[in-house]
């Protein structure tokens, strides 16, 4: 009897969350899958069961190029955010001795995250533009003669913005797992004659893996689903899957957008499934 009570009460308490997820997560996904088989005229969409959208999607070379670009953005951003995030977290966790300073510096890193993403993107324009600070500085130093054109509206600026927006998603989970490493393990390593690098390689890195995985999941999924950073920072000159979907939406081609969305969702879920092989997130919280 006690057992049923526990389950009943659990479900009652979890009911609001369940309802929200059913209505605004499960139902929309189901809807997208259904609509991906529908047809579209210029003005409206109509129920059907046809594979036209998928056929078109998989027969178009654009699709493969755009998926390739999406994975490239995700991989490069991941590599950069991981190296920066790990270094920053390592510095905070193992080199700052006072806890107050540690919390203060951590807050310094997190605060920009709370401001608007679009504003943070806009703020790169005076830096990277043709007459921006970067070009003017380089010219005045005599490094270059003419402004570099690839600083803004290029793959470079897209990835720079991604790193700017999302490195925090690496720093927080990595810092969190590093803080939970038992400091006596490091002492033991030192006593056994390990160098600083060996300790890092054989003690800290393996123990930080869960944090790295959680950060990776965040960064990879955010970058793969993004459409606004790519559009804004590339000046509409580059594309990823998110932009493909948002373009179709702009043209009111919902079935086609839905088919692309289904393929994107599958890709993201496969990537996550692979990453989850390496870590049990529920245990790590």
């Amino acid at each position, binding site marked *: 009897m006690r057992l049923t009570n*526990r*389950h009943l*009460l*659990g*479900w009652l*308490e*979890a009911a*609001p*969350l369940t309802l929200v*997820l059913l*209505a*605004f*997560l499960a139902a929309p*996904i189901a*809807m*997208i899958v259904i609509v991906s088989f529908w047809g579209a005229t210029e003005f409206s969409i109509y129920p059907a069961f046809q594979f036209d959208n998928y056929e078109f999607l998989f027969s178009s070379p654009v699709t493969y190029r755009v998926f390739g670009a999406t994975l490239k953005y995700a991989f490069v951003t991941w590599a950069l955010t991981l190296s*920066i995030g790990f*270094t*920053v977290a*390592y*510095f905070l966790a193992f*080199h700052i001795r006072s806890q107050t300073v540690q919390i203060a510096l951590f807050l*310094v890193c997190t*605060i*920009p995250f709370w*401001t*608007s*993403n*679009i*504003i943070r993107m*806009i*703020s790169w324009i*005076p*830096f990277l533009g043709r*007459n*921006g*600070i970067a070009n*003017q500085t380089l010219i005045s130093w005599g490094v270059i003669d003419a402004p570099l054109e690839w600083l803004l509206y290029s793959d470079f600026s897209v990835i720079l913005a991604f790193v700017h927006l999302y490195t925090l998603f690496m720093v927080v989970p990595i810092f969190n797992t590093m803080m939970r490493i038992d400091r006596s393990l490091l002492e033991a390593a030192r006593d056994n004659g390990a160098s*600083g690098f060996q300790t890092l390689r054989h003690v800290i890195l393996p123990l930080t893996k869960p944090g790295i995985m959680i950060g990776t*999941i*965040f960064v990879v*999924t955010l970058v793969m*689903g*993004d459409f*606004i950073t790519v559009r804004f920072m590339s000046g509409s000159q580059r594309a990823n899957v998110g932009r493909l*979907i*948002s373009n179709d*939406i702009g043209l009111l081609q*919902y079935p086609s*957008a*839905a088919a692309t*969305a289904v393929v*994107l*969702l599958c890709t*993201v*879920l496969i990537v*996550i499934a692979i990453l989850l092989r390496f870590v049990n*997130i*529920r245990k790590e*919280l």
Partner: protein
Amino acid sequence: MDRRPRSFYVLAAVFGLFVLFLYGPILTIGILSFQGPQGGLTFPMNGVSLHWFRDLFQEQAVGDIWGAFRRSFGLGLMVMVTTVVISVMAGLAFRKRFAGSGVLFYAAITSLVIPSILISLGVGLIFNQLGLKIHWATSGFGAQLTWTLPFGLLIMFAVFNRFDRSYEEAARDQGASAWQTIRHVVLPIIAPSLIGVALFGFTLSYDEFARTLLTAGSYNTLPLEIFGMTTNVTTPVIYALGTLTTAFSFAVIALCLLGVWIVSRRRARLGSDAGKGV
């Protein structure tokens, strides 16, 4: 205190560069928003003035900024309260390890990692097909919850995993009912974390763009309005807006930190009655 190794200084320099990287651009547009009336989008400064801030307040060229701000603020508060309440309830539920809790947990994780544009598209399609009107307070509100609730839930997980259950046992031993235990023991202990959940809920909603894009209806929220401006406004008025919204976000964070500080000070003062007699 022993001497710092050389790696400390190298890492400190890296950290300094990282902070500069984070704040540099924001500071730049902060400075540039004080351009004179003739000033443009980049340096050099063409005089110093409040011209662009005045422009913003006159709401002529820039659309309905203040209406958008009011809607975003209201929506942020709605999302904040809902997120706190639902996250706490779900957090308590997950402690009971009820049947099916695993499925619900993975649903929440899915909600967190699913590309935002899919939620936006799906919710928009559903409302469309059901003949419902999309509006920021209905479809927009629901779409944003799929992003804020998983964050709230993860924070509750972290909180309850570190929660000392002996306090609850003590309350129960003294005859407190389940509800009394939650009201007088659990909630006060987790209060500072709830401020964190509230901060997450509000700011995530206040800045959310992708999930609101197709679900806000005819009245824009602030991020949508700002995005509209980026395509058709070419004066520093957009920097002025950026500076103001950033200042507003910082004020909200400061308020929350103050809240946490007050709560923990009160606890330090009133938390223990040891040595005070009965």
